[in-house]
């Protein structure tokens, strides 16, 4: 009698162990899932930024040139500002401080960069636009910020930006500021 109960107990214990093992395995999958989710959040965040203009991030690749209709009923002022970040021995400033344009109209503006050191320096411009809502509506056709820029010692270069403001820009936005922060390139040729 006692022996029988013991074996029954044992099998109950085994059953429980099996049940536990299955559940632990499921939970480990959940864990793995949330870990993957954590890393997936990085691209998700970028997509969200692009869609909503969160953080003033703009698309860093060329916009397809659409035959957008120029909205001549209103004006938008786009202002330019620059920051040269620590470690970059350049001068960098916009040739014109701001530009007044119609939405849909394509404009080219010039930024001037000069390497004042005695070595070749590679830099990378990171754009940011405010207000955020404007970020999604400022379309770049051609920009020096798409790629790394290298300047020889003492070289001065005009860097063009060709862009337009989408006519879909909300009606109440009349001013926006585009900023370029020029960093020393992180994957540049050499120090």
């Amino acid at each position, binding site marked *: 009698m006692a022996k029988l109960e013991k074996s029954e107990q044992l099998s109950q214990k085994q059953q429980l162990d099996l049940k536990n093992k299955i559940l632990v395995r499921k939970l480990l999958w959940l864990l793995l899932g949330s870990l993957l989710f954590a890393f997936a959040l990085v691209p998700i965040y970028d997509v969200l930024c692009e869609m909503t203009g969160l953080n003033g991030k703009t698309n860093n690749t060329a916009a397809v040139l659409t035959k957008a209709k120029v909205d001549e009923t209103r004006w938008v002022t786009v*202002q330019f500002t620059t*920051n040269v970040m620590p*470690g*970059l021995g350049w001068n960098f400033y916009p040739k014109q401080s701001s530009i007044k344009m119609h939405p849909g109209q394509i404009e080219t503006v010039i930024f001037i960069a000069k390497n004042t050191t005695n070595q070749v320096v590679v830099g990378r411009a990171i754009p*940011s636009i405010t207000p955020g809502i404007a970020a999604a509506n400022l379309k770049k056709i051609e920009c020096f910020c798409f790629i790394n820029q290298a300047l020889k010692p003492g070289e001065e270069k005009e860097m063009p930006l060709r862009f337009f403001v989408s006519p879909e820009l909300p009606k109440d936005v*009349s001013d926006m500021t585009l900023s370029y922060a020029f960093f020393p390139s992180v994957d540049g040729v050499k120090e």
Partner: protein
Amino acid sequence: MRGYRNICLGILSMLASLSAHAEYAWNFPEPVTPMALDTLHVHNKFMLISMAIFFVVLAIMIYSIFAHRKSKNFKPVADKAPSTGMEIFWTLIPFAILLLIDFVIMGIPAYHSVVMMEDTRDKATMVVKVTGSQWRWQYEYMDGDAQGIKFVSNLSTPKEQTDKGFEGKKDEQYLLEVDNRLVLPVGEKVRILMTATDVMHNWWVPQFGSSRLAVPGFLRETWVQVDKAGTYRGQCKELCGKGHGYMPVVVDAVPMEEYKAWVVAKKAEMAKASAGADKEWTKDELIAEGKGVYEKNCAVCHQVSGAGLPPAFPALTGSKVANGPIFGADGKYLKDGHLDRVLNGIRVMPGWKALLNDTEIAAVITYERNALGNSVGDVLQPSQVKVARQ
């Protein structure tokens, strides 16, 4: 529960007994912008609602605590057999009350405040760019007559007062005074652009009701419209390292005519300073000038003695950079040389070319090479810095 009343009474009497002249702020400081005014209203309203909820609930609880005690032989009244229907009904009452408060009584004014706060798109009179760096603010006027004015705003409370163990009398505006104040015209809408060069900062003046994170490499904005002339003070409110408590914001709001006069004066001052770059300076003049520049801007990290705070902030005394050559054979300054480091910075060190003028840079470099235990002996002229910049 009497304890809680005692606590409140205790606090009140304690405060009353403390130095009588002190002005106590029980609420936000006086608002001077539409945004701050709105914020204050919203805050007051929400606080009143919260307190009303709190005291009503507290009163019910206190009543129960006194009435339904075992020591008073109160017999527990068993709730009726848990009928799910009744339970749901009863628990939905607090749910509904909060629903009303959250999304109607509080939610609607909160909505309007948010829309107003983010309303930077309307035509603003002027734009000011605020750049945070460790641990000072830099201001740049972006348009109008003032376009081109830019300057650095450092804490100006004497260093001995902020040092450890200072016993004497502190300034009235201890930790809230700067050498160069931001000047804004009264009654004008000003867009404030915000960015940073190293870590995150947050430009905050409580009386303006706006605060916005300054993120390195990115641009943020908010707006202010100061409706009352005066001097307003605030602080950085995002932890940005050891100097976080030492980067105040001071804004002078002045009438338009005064502002215009200030712009003219400031431009003349800047012109004069850059003119100084063309004259030949003696070594002693530069060292004397450089000592002031160094102690105001560099000593936070590299220390007054030049010993630095390794490993984060290297020593200047005996350093390779401060004792090495400045210019190469081609006459251009050397990358990673002394002038390059000061002009352009590296990693946590800001580039000073945007913050200091030619004379100041020449002076501070000459000082660093001929003081702080270094004796290179050479002199860097402001005119050389001017050339190097271009």
